[in-house]
């Protein structure tokens, strides 16, 4: 059985870290063999989502318990829902904590705390607050671009003639779909923008084929993100994935509209 201790250093004499999410190391100890491994925490610098990265790290190491100074409610919730026991409020060195854990002292302390039901109720409220905060942040982050896109569509409505659009989207389903896919592959960002742009384009008489291709490729093909995708997943993977997606999702767009037309008559 393995346990993880958030620590300030990479050995057994290191002190337990005050915060789980931003600790420098997670020292993973195999209680049966006595072997240990100090894994650097990629989120030690404390950027947004640090807690979640440390959670993923703990889960990937297949530990049964996490021992730490303090663990935020969201991270604690994720850990416990993955079957990992969290014991917090601890201090001392890694070695001391391992000994106390082996003797069962820490587990008893955790059980006593859990019996105080008030703590559980408080955490529920904290989790709700956390979810509300992160939803507000997610929501707020999509607004600047969305508002700008809507303002731009306003300009488009006032200044660009229908004749101009008709010259780009000729009414030929195959060509229009190809154009839609090209725009969708170049443009990027939150897909909500593609729905608004697509919806407004429909009013201009642009075919649903083109709009569907635009919406699908907006996310699935990303020329803007290509350098980042190449850096993370390799050049061949990124290029093949984008090329295959471009071709296949044009087919998906055509199929979607054909089936939609069949259903709605």
């Amino acid at each position, binding site marked *: 059985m393995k346990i993880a201790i958030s620590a300030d250093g990479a050995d057994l004499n290191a002190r337990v870290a005050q915060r789980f999410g931003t600790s420098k190391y997670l020292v993973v100890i195999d209680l049966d063999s006595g072997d240990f491994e100090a894994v650097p925490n*990629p989120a030690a*610098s404390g*950027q947004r989502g640090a807690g979640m990265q440390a*959670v*993923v790290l703990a*889960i*990937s190491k297949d530990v049964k318990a996490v021992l730490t100074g303090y663990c935020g409610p969201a991270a604690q919730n*994720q850990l416990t*829902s*993955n079957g990992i026991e969290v014991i917090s409020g601890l201090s001392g060195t890694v070695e001391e904590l391992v000994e106390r854990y082996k003797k069962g002292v820490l587990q008893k302390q955790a059980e006593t705390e859990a019996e105080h039901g008030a703590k559980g109720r408080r955490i529920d409220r904290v*989790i709700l607050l956390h*979810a*509300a905060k992160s*939803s507000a942040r*997610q*929501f707020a982050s999509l607004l*600047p*671009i969305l*508002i*700008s896109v*809507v*303002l*731009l*569509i*306003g*300009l488009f409505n*006032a*200044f660009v003639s229908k004749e101009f659009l008709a010259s780009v989207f000729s009414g030929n389903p195959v060509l229009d779909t190809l154009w839609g896919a090209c725009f969708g592959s170049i443009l990027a960002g939150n*897909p*909500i923008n593609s*729905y*608004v742009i*697509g*919806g407004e384009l*429909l009013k201009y008489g642009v075919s649903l084929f083109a709009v*569907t291709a635009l919406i*699908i490729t907006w*996310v*699935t093909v*990303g020329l803007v*993100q290509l350098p*980042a*995708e190449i*850096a993370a*997943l*390799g050049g*061949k*993977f990124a290029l*093949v*994935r984008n090329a*295959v*997606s471009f071709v*296949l*999702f044009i087919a*998906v767009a055509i*199929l*979607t509209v054909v*089936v*939609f037309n069949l259903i*709605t008559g």
Partner: protein
Amino acid sequence: VSLLKQDKQQKTVGKTRAVRTFLFPALVLITYGILFAIMPGKTSIALKSSGSIFLKILMPLGLVFVVMLVLNLFLKPAQIVKFLGSGAGIKGTVLSATAGIISAGPIYAWYPLLKDLRQKGAANSFPAIFLGNRAVKPFLLPVMISYFGWIYVVVLTVFTILGSIVVGYLVGALVKVKDVLPSHHSSAGE
């Protein structure tokens, strides 16, 4: 030293992202300013037109927030991540697709995780399935339905999921795991 380097890199990425987020709104506002000075009449029409689009998406946007809140409360992407690396065959496919659908936030936040999965030996098809399924956004459905109707949204969603899986398997067949070893090697120094 590597942690310091990583910290510095993350700060640079954060700054670039902030510039990218506000560059576009700033350009749009500047354009409005210039056009208003030259053609106030037409620019007012543009503003009114934008206003009516806002009114149209206001209600669906409210719903977007509610759905986001519910998803944040009950979905646990980390739980899925636990199985992503180990899952194979149909199980891995379903998990990758589900993780793609429920994953929120900008794609840049997810690349490190996909890279990690890859280095643990996950098949190439799974990151591809994940990336394709990011096109399915449950919390944005209210806006999509308000524009296109629910029948279209259902058909599009089903075909997007199926299409993503096909793309995933094609990428898995075309790109062998050995092809990505160089990227593994270069990342070791980070």
